[in-house]
């Protein structure tokens, strides 16, 4: 499976890509929402998008709203953020996020969320 990591932090993006690599997955990276839009317009073959909330230029929630209105991609989007209030989670889900990971997290939590969404894909 191929992931798009959308995060302005080099350290987080590297850590997550290493975790995904250990799980046997590949990843590409976008540095903010604008970059993610460009990457997805060029290549929409990702299996999952991991999306940070707080980023310059276009934030994670702005990306979700852009995608909600413009139908850029149907790839499942997993938020991955320090914004952990229930209202944040509800807003992200309302605008099309499939799952939500609160930082800090561990590798098994990424695995758990992927497994949940893959089960949903099988049922759907």
């Amino acid at each position, binding site marked *: 499976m191929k992931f798009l990591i959308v995060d302005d932090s080099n350290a987080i993006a590297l850590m997550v890509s290493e975790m995904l690599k250990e799980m046997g997955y590949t990843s590409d990276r976008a540095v903010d929402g604008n970059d993610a839009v460009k990457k997805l317009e060029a290549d929409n073959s990702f299996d999952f998008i991991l999306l940070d909330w707080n980023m310059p230029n276009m934030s994670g929630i702005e990306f979700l709203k852009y995608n909600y209105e413009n139908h850029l991609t149907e790839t499942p989007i997993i938020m991955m953020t320090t914004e952990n209030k*229930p209202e944040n*989670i509800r807003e992200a*889900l309302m605008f099309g996020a499939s799952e*939500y990971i609160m930082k800090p997290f561990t590798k098994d939590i990424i695995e758990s*969320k992927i497994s949940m969404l893959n*089960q949903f894909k099988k049922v759907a």
Partner: protein
Amino acid sequence: MSMEIKKEIYDFFAKFVYDKTGIFYPEKDYYRLDSRITTLMGHFQCETPDELFNLYVTKRNKDMEVVLIDLCTNNETYFFRDNKPFDALTKTIIPQKVAQNGYVNLWSAASSTGQEVLSIVMGLLENNPGFDLSKVKITATDISQRALKKANSFTYSSLDVQRGLPAMLLVKYFDQLPDGQWQFKSEFSKHLRYETLNLLTDNFKPNFYDVICCRNVLIYQNKENKQMIMQKLFDSIRSDGFLLMGSGESLIGTDITLTQSSVDGAMFFVKENQTWKKAA
């Protein structure tokens, strides 16, 4: 820091754990007691294993037993563990039992920190809109006081609630506390209470439960204890009742006769399932 533990001390703690929990440490696995003995030394402020041993031999009290049992039981669990059994219980088995009898007696026999019970409650409400939770009388027990304390607080860390629990259910069924932890909403937990029970030494209610969940417990027991616990579980299940065990567990090594039955892709053991067969 290397620490020398004499064989007689290993023997003592291995027998102590076996007598209280049925968890058996053969001599080749004595090294697995090392970290537990070290933790106990810290807890009871002992400098050496000998000092701890002397304390246990001369001044043993209930508190010391509780701490040792907590250390030796595995409380690893997460929400909707293995998934399929929860679908089968909450979409099919429990609703059918409620329709037939008006209520269900369900026992979570190794409830650990509570995720199994809360998964059943959420599953029932999600799969049966408007479901009357008072129709399901849940008994939830565990041997570990540490696990029971957490279960009865209905409070989980942000790591706990991300293991197996969809975000949509998190915001629907949990409130976030000021310290960032998440608490199961009282409107859904008000009828739940977790209690102490030792599967090895305590008696079970005979002929009482329609569903018993006893997952990943018997794998730690030797043949004799497995037989004894299975016999008590068998006596405790009502006719046409369901037993859910862990995915790797079976009745092999016991003389218990229960029928294996697949419900919605999940494996259950059923006691005299004539009615179930007719209903299916």
